[in-house]
């Protein structure tokens, strides 16, 4: 299947012995000039790239407290070294979070600290060179910015912050990643990561409406660009056509239908995802999120609800207010924005949804906490709500739910291996190896509880798992959306399912 070895899954997690340089060959495609320009980056390495890079580092040190503090206070204690899924899966020493940070820190020390300027060998400071730059490009695209390391660092040093800064510096000297930068460009021009234009989107939604009517006998709408709707729904574009994402979208539509709310999607803001975060670019991240503000104003909505997307939810929950706020033109009764799970969970608590759990009886489900949601966002205005709410919703629609081992879930969850702009074919080896810890946990719970399906609420996780599960002896259809489970169980008013249930009840 592959020209590299797929890591083994053990009965108990093993911390591997480190090897040097085994993933140095891993490097995503470089962005051509046409993808760099629209984002404000040079198309290739300028002559004075060294000065530009060091100036950029200085600029970032003055703009981000996280960068300055994290580069200064690491004591090399090694607490983080066995916590990164990429280290565990690849064993490459530079994938240990502290070692990854050192790639940047050793240059920071050389140009910005007393010890680095006058006693470089003592503190491991080095000059910036093309070799170092290439190393940055390779290894900062072996970090999915999942923040797991920050949970275990005594000071909360977050390699994601270092990784974002490094990619910003790389972009400033023309070394951008094709995957992320091309996609960001597409959103600017067309409105979403997939380059799905308005007409194609409208056709897709019509097709889904027909599918739902065939399945349930009910006309459930998926509205697009409706002025005056109450709720603007912003969801990852993968929800419009990929499997199992689209089953989640169908689930949201059914929930909104039963709730009787008026809602709409937007072709201008047809993308929840925000790849600007991955490249550490405040300006680009902001430009992308402003589309949501623009759509909300244009359509005159009162609420904004996000669909199942991981990093999008981090940007939405933690950054949207900062980047595109204030949202004082929206209904203050509701948080801005909300997550579809908050919406569904509230309805369930109010008893407003009829759910037939037996529709999911063929499945024994476990839940994958997506990194950006677990460690980068919240839900339900309670600490840890992002762990509680998805599980409560699953338990409301499924009879068989079991968690993976405690030290692999909640804030200790393992990244799927495809996040942070790494969900690309040119990084396949990295993605397969990075998935190892999560796959190992899945195997454990499968053996213990006969798990048949893995549920997730992140478009990247769903795509990554669909690709990577087969490498580890699972099948690609085992990954499901949480709102797919809801879609299976929900009983719509006036539906065939409702009639069947009524008939069953009468005949008893």
């Amino acid at each position: 299947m592959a020209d590299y070895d797929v890591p083994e899954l053990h009965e108990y997690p093993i911390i591997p012995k480190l090897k040097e340089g085994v993933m140095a060959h891993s490097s995503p495609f470089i962005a051509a000039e046409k993808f760099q320009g629209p984002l404000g980056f040079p198309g290739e390495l300028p002559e004075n790239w060294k000065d530009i890079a060091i100036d950029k580092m200085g600029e970032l040190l003055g703009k981000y407290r996280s960068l300055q503090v994290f580069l200064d206070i690491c004591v090399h204690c090694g607490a983080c070294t066995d916590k990164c899924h990429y280290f565990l899966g690849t064993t490459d020493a530079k994938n240990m979070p502290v070692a990854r940070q050192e790639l940047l820190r050793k240059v920071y020390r050389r140009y910005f600290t007393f010890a680095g300027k006058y006693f470089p060998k003592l503190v491991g400071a080095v000059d910036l060179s093309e070799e170092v730059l290439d190393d940055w490009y390779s290894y900062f695209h072996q970090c999915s910015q999942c923040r797991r390391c920050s949970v275990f660092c005594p000071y909360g040093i977050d390699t994601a912050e270092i990784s974002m800064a490094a990619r910003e510096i790389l972009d400033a000297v023309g070394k951008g990643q094709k995957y992320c930068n091309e996609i960001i460009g597409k959103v600017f021009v067309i409105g979403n990561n997939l380059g799905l234009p308005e007409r194609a989107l409208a056709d897709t939604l019509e097709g889904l409406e027909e599918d739902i009517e065939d399945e349930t006998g009910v006309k459930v709408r998926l509205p697009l660009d409706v002025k005056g709707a109450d709720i603007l729904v912003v969801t990852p574009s993968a929800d419009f056509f990929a499997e199992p994402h689209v089953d989640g979208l169908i689930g949201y539509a059914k929930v909104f239908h039963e709730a009787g709310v008026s809602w709409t999607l937007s072709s201008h803001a047809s993308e929840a995802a925000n790849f600007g975060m991955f490249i550490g670019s405040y300006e680009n991240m902001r430009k992308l999120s402003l589309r949501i503000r623009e759509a909300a104003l244009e359509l005159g909505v009162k609420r904004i609800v996000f669909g199942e997307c991981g990093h999008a939810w981090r940007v939405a929950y933690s950054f949207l207010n900062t980047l595109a706020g204030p949202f004082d033109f929206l209904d203050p009764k509701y948080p801005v924005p909300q997550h579809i799970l908050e919406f569904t969970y509230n309805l369930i608590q109010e008893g407003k949804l009829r759910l037939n759990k037996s529709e999911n009886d063929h499945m024994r489900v476990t839940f994958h906490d997506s990194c950006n949601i677990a460690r980068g966002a919240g839900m339900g205005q309670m600490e840890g709500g992002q762990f509680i709410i998805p599980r409560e919703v699953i338990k409301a629609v499924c009879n068989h739910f079991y968690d993976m081992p405690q030290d692999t879930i909640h804030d200790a969850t393992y990244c799927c291996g495809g996040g942070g702009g790494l969900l690309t074919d040119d990084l396949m080896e990295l993605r397969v190896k990075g998935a190892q810890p999560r796959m190992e946990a899945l195997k454990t719970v499968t053996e213990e509880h006969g798990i048949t399906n893995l549920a997730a609420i992140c478009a990247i996780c769903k795509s990554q798992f669909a690709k990577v599960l087969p490498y580890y002896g699972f099948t690609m259809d085992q990954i499901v959306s949480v709102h797919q489970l809801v879609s299976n169980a929900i009983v719509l008013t006036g539906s065939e399912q409702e009639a069947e249930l009524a008939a069953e009840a009468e005949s008893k």
Partner: protein
Amino acid sequence: MSYVSTLYVGLFYAATVILVVGVALRIKKYAQIPAPLKIPTMPAPRTEAGVAMRMFREVVFFESLFRSNKWTWIFGYLFHFGMLLVLLRHLRYFTEPVWFWVNWVQPFGKYAAFAMLAGLLGLWARRFLVDRVRYISTPSDHLMLALLVGIVMSGLGMAYLAHTDIVAVKAFFLGLMHLSPQPLPGDLFLLVHLGLVALLMIIFPISKLLHAPGVFFSPTRNQVDDSRERRHIAPWAKELEASER
């Protein structure tokens, strides 16, 4: 006064200035750089009081380190807690009369020094025995541990092997504080101990010891989770917005 006494007077004045000014400048820098985005490691407290508790648990119990690695936690905690007791006991050299609660620490001081040593040696051993920690250890990491071990052992040397005239030592330090320098005993252990301490003070603001003030500025630990409720925006970001209108 002897040449050595004068040298140490100068050394400690210089070290104190470097330490205080150096750390103050760093703290000023950390305080003045904005944290433009809400990035607390979630789940995070939703109130300021909650954040204070989180920071308290980190600084007093090393909560995150405990979750990460029990061995590193044991050695790290032994060292830091031992150091705390030792430093508190050392206050007797800088205060007259000695504060009453410093007298309570007295009996623990010597055990604390051994705890410190055990912690330091354990941490140092990890830098050789664990491949992951060996890989990331720079010369300065080893030297820092050597420095601290040197301070502890020279201190223990004075406690158990060759007593020094601690009354004169106290007079020396009180003299420094009152700008009226007094002579310093010339014992080897004492000169080594104080020399290494001065070195520690001097390198503090240019080394990883900045983790001490720095942890309080870590955005992943000191931010409140209220991003939806309150708009958090840095001055430079506000300017960016304003420039677009």
